[in-house]
């Protein structure tokens, strides 16, 4: 079975909300995961994520992620 390995960048207000997380987290799974499932594996409630990008493009939270990629979680402007 193929192992899924994804880097997740957690930044901005999200790190205030989830102080236990580092700026770069790694998610490893033996089963395929969607963006939303990856977020939730990190203990993040997916609604607190404004949007997610991969290689600079916004991707759907229900997208099935391929291995060896980097996801960036963008946080809401938090009252700019």
């Amino acid at each position, binding site marked *: 079975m193929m192992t899924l390995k994804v880097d997740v960048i957690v930044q901005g207000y999200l790190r205030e909300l989830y102080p236990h997380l580092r700026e770069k987290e790694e998610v490893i799974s033996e089963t395929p995961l969607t963006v939303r499932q990856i977020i939730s594996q990190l203990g*993040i409630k*997916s609604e*607190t994520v404004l949007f997610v*990008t991969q290689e600079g493009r916004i991707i759907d939270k229900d997208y099935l992620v391929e291995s060896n990629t980097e996801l960036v979680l*963008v946080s809401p402007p*938090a009252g700019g």
Partner: protein
Amino acid sequence: MLHGYAGKILKINVGSGKQVAENTPPELAEQYLGGRGFVARLLYDSIEPGTDPLGPANLVVIATGPLSGHLLPGSGKTHFGTLSPATGGYGDSNMGGHFGPALKYAGYDCLVLEGAAEKLSTIVIDNDKIEIVEDETLQGKGALVAEKILKERLGEDFQIITIGPAGENKVAFACISHDFGRQAGRTGVAAVLGSKNIKAVAVRGTGSIPVYNAKGAQQKGEAMYKVCFAKPGFKTWTPYGTASITSWVNEVGAFPTRNFQSSFAEFHNKINGQAVVDKLLITDKGCFGCPTPCGKYGYAKTALGNAYVEGPEYESIATLGGSCCLEEIEEVAYANYVCDQLGLDTISAGVVVSFAMECFEKGVINTAEIGRSISFGSLDDVVYLLEKIAACEGIGAVLAGGVKPASAAFGGGSEQYAIHVKGLEWSGYECRNAPGMMLSYMTADVGAHHNRSWALGYDISQSDADVSELIKAGAGGKMDVSSPEGKVDHVISMQHSRPLYDTLGICRLQTMEIGFETVHYEEVFELITGRKLSWAEMLAISEKIWQLTRLFNVKHIDGFGRSWDYPPRRFMEEPVTSGPNEGRYIKKEILDKMLDEYYEKRGWDSNGIPTPETIKAYGLK
């Protein structure tokens, strides 16, 4: 010498013409840092109880921070403060752009205006040469038009703030305008400028700011930019700016719709960040020193007319788009443009107009009083009301005071849905499923403003249901009201961290958006000022300022106390009408429980008044 600071506070009596440039007191810089700290301390010390906000004895304080104008990300911020005509208490508003840095290069940390000019005038500050120029030809000119005229007259290198007709007519939510699209919108500072007959302030600063360790500060500043460039969010967040949040706010059921009857708009995709980029955008427009410009400058075409306009940013989308139900982004942008020219705060203006629309729907006001029938979703009606308000004509004269006095005048139960706290209209987050955010609005010193503490994300993170799963599941799926437990500490902590940026004279978005670390500010602060201060020590100063602005409200508002800290009854009694939070509201008992805890943790009595022990503990007097 105070390093990092310009070194002088310029006080101008615009009536007598008397000007004094005093040295910035080192103890003021030490104890209050700058920006919001200077505004709060100077206003508290200088305004007597019983002062008329629109009388000559009121002050307008314009303050930069120690980091304003230096080489570091987001150093373009300026803070404005006054005894607010909207609330009768502490008022301030923060603005980006280039004005604050120019003020510092001219030699001033802070500008204090008092008195009232006899005729409409412009203050021209050309380094140490200061003139108050009478110019009645600018009377009634749009805020952007006036700025253009003054730029052409004085030169490109002047940075200018202006007021529109709404400010001249002392509308309680008139805003200050700068750089063709930046505003100090909230609490009616522009109405106070209008009461002083000041149409504009123009500044040219050609000098420099003393830096403790210029080489070190340069190296650190350069490194700070490079940290920003390397953040993964640098390229992904910037293209959409604050409008990027629109659909998210709607998804979590916090998007004000139909004067906050609902918190969900079906048409959100037509007025979100993508719509701004697809239908309006000409260029990104940055503030001084900004690596991640949220300003989106565009061109809107509508049936009513076409306009160049900066924005709309999220708050304008929420109040003009959501609350007034303008369903096309071009219409929201055009209404934004009309507000900008008239010099009206888009947040309050959107809420006031949507309030009038609901009053009309409910029969509280009629066509004879309004001059026509009005309805949600009509750009024509929105513009009609905005123009009436700015001119203080007919129904506009009543609405010009804001929803609090207007609802008192209209009666008919309209207080229930006059959406404000302390007399300041609510900004763009509906909170009937977000108790932390609700408490943030309730306890913000200026009234119902979001940027003192933005706890919405925290509320969502604490709720026990996955909203999108519920939406997908169809009718019946509802997000549970997240519990108020633990919210108070989070709100208090944010009320210190968010306003600290306004105190230092910098933008918070690099931290909030792309994760720029606060430790960099500690380091650059020391290199610029020569003073070693940890972020925690700066937060302690911010906490003291929070106590001081509360004391300002106690000093100036008759009978001030707990009753001033409640949201409108709609939020405590009426269920949300649609969307993921349909049926939700937060009972007064829950809010009371949170307020009790909040007051206790603040060292305030059960009426919300700082106790003598608290005042002493913070060294305030």
